[in-house]
């Protein structure tokens, strides 16, 4: 029997009840939200279950929603069942003042650097991560640049000497 989104949904609600919220299917991919203290439990269930078998972590990334009070930061997991070729998307939301989320490194080695990257850009603190430090940015950086409060440089600013780059300055 092919593994359908309805079936995964049924199994998840049967196991966890109404902890699983915001179930949607954008572009055919099952998407749901779990509370942040439940992410490992749900992931472990999806991994271990002999029918669900979501044993491949495709992608892990952060998102910042500045307008959602109390749930500003999100971690998005894309998991893949390679046997039945089904993907799903799991989201965990967190308060920006307390961005602690359990790490997935105990289940997936691939989560290691991806969580470091998410920490690097969004400041999500992965509890239990073996080596949580910046990966793409310099170690001395003291802010999390992908958060929405840090806009990109204003392209019309004139106070900067951009002459060497062919913009502004005496080059016209």
């Amino acid at each position, binding site marked *: 029997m092919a593994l359908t989104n309805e079936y995964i949904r049924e199994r998840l609600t049967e196991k966890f009840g109404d902890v699983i919220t915001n179930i949607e299917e954008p572009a055919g991919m099952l998407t749901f939200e779990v509370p942040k203290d439940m992410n490992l439990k749900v992931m472990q269930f999806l991994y271990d279950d002999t029918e669900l078998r979501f*044993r491949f972590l*495709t992608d892990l990334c952060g998102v910042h929603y500045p307008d959602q009070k109390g749930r500003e930061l999100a971690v998005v997991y894309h998991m893949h069942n390679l046997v039945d*070729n089904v993907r799903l998307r799991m989201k965990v939301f967190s308060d920006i003042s307390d961005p602690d989320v359990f790490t997935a490194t105990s289940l997936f*080695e*691939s989560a290691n650097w991806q969580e470091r*990257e998410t920490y690097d850009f969004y400041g999500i603190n992965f509890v239990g991560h073996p080596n949580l430090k910046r990966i793409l940015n310099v170690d001395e950086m003291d802010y999390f640049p992908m958060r929405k409060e840090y806009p990109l440089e204003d392209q019309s600013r004139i106070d900067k000497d951009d002459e060497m780059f062919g913009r502004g300055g005496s080059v016209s």
Partner: protein
Amino acid sequence: MSEIIHQQPHHISLPEGSIGKQTTTLNLGPTHPATHGVFQNILEVDGERIVSSEQTVGYIHRAFEKIAERRPLYQITPLTDRLNYCSSPINNMGWHLTCEKLLGVSTPKRVDYLRVIIMELSRIADHLICNSIVGVDSGAFSGFLYVMQYRELIYEIFEEVCGSRLTTNIGRIGGFERNFSNAAFEKIEKFLKEYPVTLKEFENLFNRNRIFMERTMGTGGISAERALNYGFTGPNLRAAGVDYDVRVASPYCSYQDFEFDIPVGSTGDNYDRFMVRNQEMWQSLSIIEQAFRKVQEFKGTDADVYHADVPEYYLPKKEDVYTKMEALIWHFKIIMGEIDMPKGEVYHSVEGGNGELGFYLISDGGRAPFRLHFRRPCFIYYQAYSELTKGALLSDAVITMSSLNLIAGEMDA
């Protein structure tokens, strides 16, 4: 993998006050010629054997994901060029396919086949450079020169289609910027005729070469289970024996219309990775040939179709822009990013040169994506390098690095 033997050198009496450390710390990179890209490995070596290693990446981080949050869709295509620059057309098309998925654009069959031709050509370009570099790192330079000639020909084909060679910015949402010229088709035909001869020659140089086999077999190996846990995709995963290929698992761009095999290895070592890539080049050649024949079957007006009919996203012809008001309006709106995207989130992945290249796009209906995340295959599987090289010889670690097909541009985004 052999055990590391810690021998206490009893015959050496260390001078007073010296530390008892028996290993040497060695920096491989960030600008070492053997790393083929800017990344650093801090190795702890005991003689020639690597005891442990730590990787540092991010030297060429260019904040693509942040920049993408201000740019309209078309302006993001050049950013994708600079991820895996050995096969930029695959990145471009992966991005356009993601946009098409979000915008609900469907493409005509001829466009799909033309895209398949370009994507498979760039897969060959990607694999041939990776495999020949494995050869260079193991001491055989001539294979590199044999195949490089054909990368040049592939780049000429790209040039004929889109005007540029390395960072191609090829195609548009819905198709191509122009129809393929006769010269492009002639060059593809020439490539199909000549490349198999060279590839055969290349294989003769390496496949059963005693020195090459001794150098690559049994080094840098990984089991299928560990490879999956580490998030391996593409040829590296298939070399470990898992037949996962995005082209077959979730076909895009009409890949279901083509007959091809997925070559797999068994031990996941450097030799298997090399062999899998070689076999994939043969498969790609066969796909290009099939696609070429399918494209030739379109006759009359069908043969002029090179884009979907989506005026909201596809730039109008230049001569129309100068003469027709509607075309001018659309041109302006598309260029300035005045087209609001539908709200939603999509994940789309393509089989890139070195694994599953994914695009996760969240749109809040504005002119630019709210969030765009690139799933960069080599960023994910490079984590395994520490495990792959533990206890290996330093010279084998260099081959392992090149056979993983690490592209610094993709790793650092």
